């Protein structure tokens, strides 16, 4: 099914800045016989910040994981449409090739390295492959000096209590995951519930970073259940249910749409 478009101006790309986009075609994924994602034709990245919302189990995370190829596709094709005009078939690449093309995703479920400190984790994210070879056993200083400033900036901005220690709380791990993503300098950033479990103040900071990033030309797709984040951040909202994006439009239009209200927001929300 092709998503209905609500709200007039959404049909025409509003900006001159060309951004990398991702095109999902005929992508299907089922788990034990149950179709979880079935996207016919979907282009992401037309607008700087797009929100992806929908009820629990709608397939939002699975779709993002399919884009990253960390979940395999039953069939279909996913391609990155570069700002320069070229095209990269993401669905034919292994997951470790995504970051090299600027496609990066944060995780809904906490992912961390329990033996690495916060500093370690961030140095890992930034370290170039050539310094990570078995004979480059004296390159720690180089990597540290190259990236120290940038890492410190993020550490201070988000106010990590003790970056020389291990990430302790769920919130800290979640934030660490986001900072790792930011350090990869994404051109297409997928955020899967980035602010879930974060205190108000940090949610604001994450949102501010996302805005900056988008202003700089990065395409952002964000999944959130905290709809205040969605309404205030997004240029366009996509509504997903039962595996497909069934509706897309500007936040105001989605917020007032009857289907969305019935299936997700509940009566009396607006």
């Amino acid at each position, binding site marked *: 099914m092709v998503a209905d478009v609500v709200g007039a101006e959404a049909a025409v790309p509003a900006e001159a800045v060309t951004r990398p986009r991702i095109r999902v075609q005929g992508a299907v994924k089922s788990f034990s016989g149950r179709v979880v994602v079935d996207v016919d034709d979907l282009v992401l990245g037309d607008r700087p910040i797009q929100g992806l919302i929908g009820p629990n189990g709608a397939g939002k995370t699975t779709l993002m994981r399919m884009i990253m190829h*960390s979940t395999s596709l039953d069939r279909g094709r996913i391609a990155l449409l570069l700002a320069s005009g070229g095209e990269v078939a993401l669905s034919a690449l292994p997951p470790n090739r995504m970051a090299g093309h600027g496609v990066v995703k944060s995780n809904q479920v906490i992912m961390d*390295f329990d033996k690495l*400190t916060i500093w370690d984790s961030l140095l*890992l994210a930034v370290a170039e492959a050539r310094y990570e070879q078995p004979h480059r*056993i004296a390159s720690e200083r180089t990597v540290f000096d190259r990236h120290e400033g940038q890492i410190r900036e993020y550490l201070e901005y988000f106010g990590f209590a003790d970056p020389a220690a291990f990430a302790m709380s769920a919130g800290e791990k979640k934030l660490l995951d986001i900072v790792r993503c930011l350090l990869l300098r994404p051109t297409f950033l997928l955020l899967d519930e980035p602010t879930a479990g974060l205190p108000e103040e940090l949610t604001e900071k994450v949102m501010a970073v996302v805005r900056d990033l988008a202003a700089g030309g990065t395409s952002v797709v964000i999944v959130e259940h905290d709809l205040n984040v969605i309404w205030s951040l997004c240029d366009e909202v996509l509504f997903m249910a039962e595996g497909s994006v069934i509706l897309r439009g500007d936040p105001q239009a989605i917020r007032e749409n009857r289907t969305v209200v019935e299936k997700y927001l509940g009566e009396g929300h607006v």
Partner: protein
Amino acid sequence: MNIDWLDAFLISGLFQVAMVTGLALLLHLQLGLARIANFGVVGFWGIGMYVFGVLYVKVDWPFGDPWQFLASAAIATFVAGVAGLLIGWLISDLNTDGVLVGTLGFATAVQILATTEDDFTGGALGMGGLDFPFDIGRVKDNEFLWLVIMVAVVAAILLYVWRVHRSPYGRLLIAVGGNEPLVRSLGKSTFRAKLWLFVVGSAGMGLLGAMNGVMVHYLDVGNVGVGVTLAAMVGLVLGGTARVWGGVVGVILTVGLFDIVVQSYLPLPEEWYSQAIPVLREAAFGLTLMLVLLFRPLGLLGDMRRDKLMGRIHGR
């Protein structure tokens, strides 16, 4: 230098300790950092030893020692590294069970090959003709010098491992051991990291095997058994898989205690040495392994402390 206080037993005991320590250190990078349980240590070690032996004895080299030794050992090291590449490639996508079966199967295959390819290896009869690449006098002097060289090689491996902990490569290995999908999402090829880990580790194990061949003079398929893997594994687990010094401490306490103290200084009946002692040794190591895993699973030295290490090298 007067080395009269050293008897042949002690020299060979110390040689064993040093060599197994080297194996345990290389295994530490695989098991302790990348969490890959390589049960094929003896396979790589055996390949090094046999390839070296065959090259050294059967090839008509245009030059003598020490070049004959160096050339044979270099090729043996290289071949062991290639074996590591193949095995690393084979197991890179397997889970823990698959890795166990794969590496164990590889070690068994090496032993079977050493037995059946008797044109090259002498098969079950064994193969002689290996000797020190130098002659400085008495047998004992030669053996002592070889022990010193082995200790130097193992010290170099220790230094390498110590540096790996302080390098981006070591961090990558720890990350691979912790959460492979997350490493891949950061744009890193865990496949390549594991391949290189196996190439370097296996080559090192092969070199140690070749050097062992020189020490024992006689290659016997009975020596290419699981006991070698067990000794390295038990030593490492006892000391602490995740620590640089784990292998050193653990091997001294296991192989050192058994091969030196028990065998040389306990009044054991003469007839035990060929039959009972190897069995006793494996039983003792197996028991140690069980006790450590039960009561101190992280080993004597405990877990890795990246927070302290990072604090030391980069400050707070």
